[in-house]
């Protein structure tokens, strides 16, 4: 029989919170690379106002569609973090060290949804070329 095409599987089940898959994607997970990444994360500074990496992503049409697909709880948490960050930015303040997002806590919640949206868009483009 004919074989099935396998799209990127996305874990929707447990509220969209992933484990750190991207850490294992790289062949070199040596201690040097990890400590560099930690340093870079803290240097970027968005964790000081309580944001995660996916909160800062630029909202183009793909990202907007991926955000539309987020489960309600994840979306509400994102909105809360953005509001808190706007408030801190207005006050020209940062969070105390204990409340800042840590490198280990950062979850790329939007990544599977975004990947799926981009895959679907590419599929439509492929078919329209035919």
């Amino acid at each position, binding site marked *: *029989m*004919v074989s*099935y*095409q*396998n*799209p990127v599987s996305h874990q*929707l089940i447990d509220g969209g919170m992933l484990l750190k898959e991207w850490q294992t994607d790289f062949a070199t997970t040596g201690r040097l690379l990890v400590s560099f990444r930690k340093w870079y994360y803290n240097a970027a500074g968005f964790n000081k106002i309580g944001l995660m990496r996916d909160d800062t992503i630029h909202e183009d049409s793909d990202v907007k569609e991926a955000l539309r*697909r987020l*489960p309600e709880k994840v979306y509400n948490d994102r909105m809360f973090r953005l509001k808190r960050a706007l408030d801190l930015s207005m006050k020209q303040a940062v969070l105390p060290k204990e409340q800042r997002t840590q490198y280990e806590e950062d979850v790329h919640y939007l990544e599977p949804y975004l990947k799926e949206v981009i895959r679907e868009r590419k599929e439509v483009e492929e078919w329209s070329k035919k």
Partner: protein
Amino acid sequence: MKGIRGISKLSTRLYAAQVARKLDVSVEHVKFQPQEVQVTKLPSGLMIASLDNYSPGSRIGVFVKAGCRYESPENQGVTHLLRLAANLTTKGASAFRICRGVEAVGGSLGVTSSRENMIYSVDCLRDHIDTVMEYLINVTTAPEFRPWEVSDLTPRVKMDKALAAQTPQMGVIEGLHGAAYKNALSNSLYCPDYMVSQVDSDHMHNFIQNNFTSARMALVGLGVEHNVLKQVGEQFLNIRSGMGTAGTKAQYRGGEVRVQNGSSLVHSVVVSEGAAVGTDEAMAFSVLQHVLGAGPHIKRGSNPTSKLFQGVAKATADPFDASAFNSNYSDSGLFGVYTISQSAAAGDVIKAAISQVKAVTGGVSEADLTRAKTQLKAEYLMSLESSEGLLDAMGSQALSGGVYHSPEAIAQKIDSVSATDVANAANKFVSGKKSMASSGNLIKTPFVDEI
């Protein structure tokens, strides 16, 4: 000269004649033997039925015993959503791919659902069966019901309901089932208002898990080989075994529902409990339906063969319509009269129609009986003429009984109905507890206990 110059070109034209000559030269004619419908039951409980009618187009259907009677009080409306969700993303293909893939081979994928069954069917040219079969199996066994895709169905649910509300018949018949039964068969084919945006992905997954099991499915094909279907059934359609949740037995209660609106035409149906599918009584009810009149056979004619029509014509001079209503389900049925009349004459029309049925309890003449049997046979045979009708008949019979009865066998059964059977059926209607559903301007419409 022009004419003679043209003559030399004659040998290069005359294409049709050249082709015809070639065909005469061919040595063998492939003889196609007429095939019978083959039905087998796999060990997993899946029924496979097929007929190779050598047609250039094939039609394959997956029939599941998962109609709206199997909805529970918590997930009312899930079958309506499932009906609309047939094209959504599955594990093997995205929604876009299913749509374009089926279009690319010139096929079509559709879903029908009744109170008893859900039917997913694809049709396409014979050569492209593999492709569309893949999509069909994907849709029936591995849908993903992504939450955002399911919530995007809400406008379509509302559109469906609005379209159904346009025809008074839909409202009356859904209301009738709601009034006549306590459970199972009282569920509506359409999603109730309060559930319109509340049915979600989990409800749909649970319904599929509990009801789309191999023992309750039939894979039916027209224009495909039996072995191909068997292979597909064994490999792909045995994901969930067992009977799933058992459906509840439908309990007839006999109630009334009245929908007062401004319409000048009153639609009214009065029924009492009928017979289940496949019983001899059901055959008697079908014959009785045609004795009384089951719709005009000539457009805009005076319907002279319909007892109901002739009887009611004496009661009112205004336009009306009266026909016998007959439904058969796996464990129950409904039989009665459906009338459409002007609101002032509604009472007279309904009473005249019911008295016509009472008249049949006294006996029906030989001529009427033969005429009714012929009409019933003709209706059944003509429904088998189209590929949808034939697929439907094969699938419903495979699911309910496990056996396909040939048209000849059915015609014999119809012939064996006697006048006493028909009179008994009429008696059952007259003496049974009535249910009624009416809509329109109901001032002059009697209540069910006033009939």
